[in-house]
């Protein structure tokens, strides 16, 4: 690991205007209210918290899907929050997102090949269709799918397969940072385990850095190197995985951990 982090977020605020009209008083929802963290090269940092804590807004702010209110986010030394869309465009390849519902992020009218070819051309990673096809076949194999499926359309796949395709769409661009927002939450338990193993293996093999956003503490323990616990727009505790799960310091972290129904208590 290098000493300078790939991403350093300092005092990030993302506020939404909620009330307000011609005469009504304006009010603000401070979804992200002053958070700081860093992600090193090849590291997986999880943001964990309950609904409404602001964890998804962090991911959306870092990909410029939401404008930040204030703060700094240095990616390889450049502040991505200050960039205009033209300056940010090349970074759209380096920073990729995996969403909860892969079906919503795949165009139903395009074949898998068409879906995966488009970004390769946009980012100048393939010179010809044949070259693109080669890269697609290779990537589909890496996510555990038969390359022949590239002729098919999203509706022909199960939820787990769609998420594999969603992961292929991200990995084919060889990004530096992947932001995964509840990437395995919609999957059945037996399929979730397959996809989690896949994400972990791809991350290890490629050395990609990852911001893993999740409400599921078991999943977070499985995938992360470090964990940041969010509550009401703020990070209440950050630490190595072991530290957070075995010696939590903050009362909120302790309460979260003690709320999880456990199987071990019923094993005689």
């Amino acid at each position, binding site marked *: 690991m290098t000493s300078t982090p790939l991403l350093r977020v300092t005092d990030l605020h993302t506020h939404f205007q909620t009330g307000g009209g011609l005469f009504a008083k304006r009010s603000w929802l401070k979804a992200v209210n002053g958070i700081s963290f860093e992600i090193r090269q090849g590291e997986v940092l999880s943001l964990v918290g309950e609904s409404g804590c602001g964890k998804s807004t962090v991911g959306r702010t870092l990909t410029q899907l939401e404008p930040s209110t204030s703060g700094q986010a240095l990616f390889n030394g450049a502040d991505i929050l200050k960039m205009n869309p033209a300056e940010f465009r090349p970074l759209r390849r380096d920073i990729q997102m995996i969403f909860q519902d892969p079906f919503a992020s795949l165009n139903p009218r395009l074949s898998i090949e068409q879906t995966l070819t488009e970004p390769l051309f946009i980012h100048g990673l393939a010179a010809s269709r044949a070259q693109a096809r080669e890269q697609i076949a290779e990537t589909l194999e890496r996510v555990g799918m038969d390359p022949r499926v590239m002729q098919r359309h999203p509706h022909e796949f199960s939820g787990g397969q769609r998420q594999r395709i969603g992961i292929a769409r991200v990995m084919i661009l060889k990004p530096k940072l992947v932001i995964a927002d509840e990437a395995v939450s919609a999957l059945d338990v037996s399929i979730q385990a397959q996809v989690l193993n896949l994400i972990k293996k791809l991350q290890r093999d490629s050395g990609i850095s990852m911001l893993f956003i999740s409400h599921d503490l078991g999943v977070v323990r499985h995938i992360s190197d470090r964990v940041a616990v969010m509550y009401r727009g703020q990070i209440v505790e950050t630490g190595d995985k072991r530290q957070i799960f075995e010696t939590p310091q903050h009362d909120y972290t302790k309460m979260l951990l003690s709320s999880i129904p456990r199987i071990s*208590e019923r094993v005689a």
Partner: protein
Amino acid sequence: MALLEVSNLEIAVATGGQLLPVVRGVSFEVKANETFGIVGESGCGKSLTSLAIMGLLEGSQVRITGGSIHFDGRELTALSAEDRRAIMGAQMAMIFQEPMTSLNPVYRIGDQIVETLRQHRDMSRRQARDRAVELLDLVRIPEPGRRIDSFPHQMSGGQRQRVMIAMAMACDPKLLIADEPTTALDVTVQKEVLDLMADLQSRMGTAIVLISHDLGVIAETCDKVAVMYRGKIAESAATGELFSNMCHPYTRGLLNSIPVVDRDVEWLEAIPGRVPTIDEVLSGCAFHPRCAMAEARCESEDPDKRDVATGHTIRCHFAEVGSA
């Protein structure tokens, strides 16, 4: 005599002129004051089983094609629609995953509880309203006298689920069916709702059928468990017995698939393949394409139910207690 006895229940979906079986040969019983859990992945038939007990399959594409549901001395599958309605909401009640879709958004929650009470009990409007306040207090809604006039959208997800529980418990039902009651809730709220259900059960002696995809929730709340796969009960036992002597390869696979919070596991032992869809025709044991123990026999012969220990049954040709 158990309060609820389901035997050899068969449910099928009518589609394109044919009947696809979705629940096959499901049998279990639930006594008063007992919580029975049904766990499984999407499409395993756990929700359809609960809807069949509640009598909510009427008029849909799904119908009961065999077996019996015996409740408190009566055969439910033979009752007229009118007789069923007298039981629904009064002697058995149900709560669902998403309370917002079960509550009417344009009526105050108090009015909705009052309606349930007046439907089944001979009560004046005043008496029913007083009882509704008591019920809200029972499910720990703060300031029940004031919150009774709230609309569903003015409450949090956890509070809405408490209102659903209050409504379900309004007529002191003997049986409560809870279908993924905490799946949409945050873990801290989930704990409060599960604690509340356990507390109400101990006070009122209600029998509960809890449907969940979450083995953790099942382990903490249930006395007995049935694990369903592709319409059948793969394994069933008392909760302690099931989790200590897990036998069926699917149950073990399900448990090993769950990332736990108490220790580090490098790689999860995932079950290969995918959950079958209802229109797939599978010969032999439905789990054999995903099973590490599968042999030629599993492809051709569907295993019968057999006992591996007292009260512990499985459908598998090979698994035994301690063979893991």
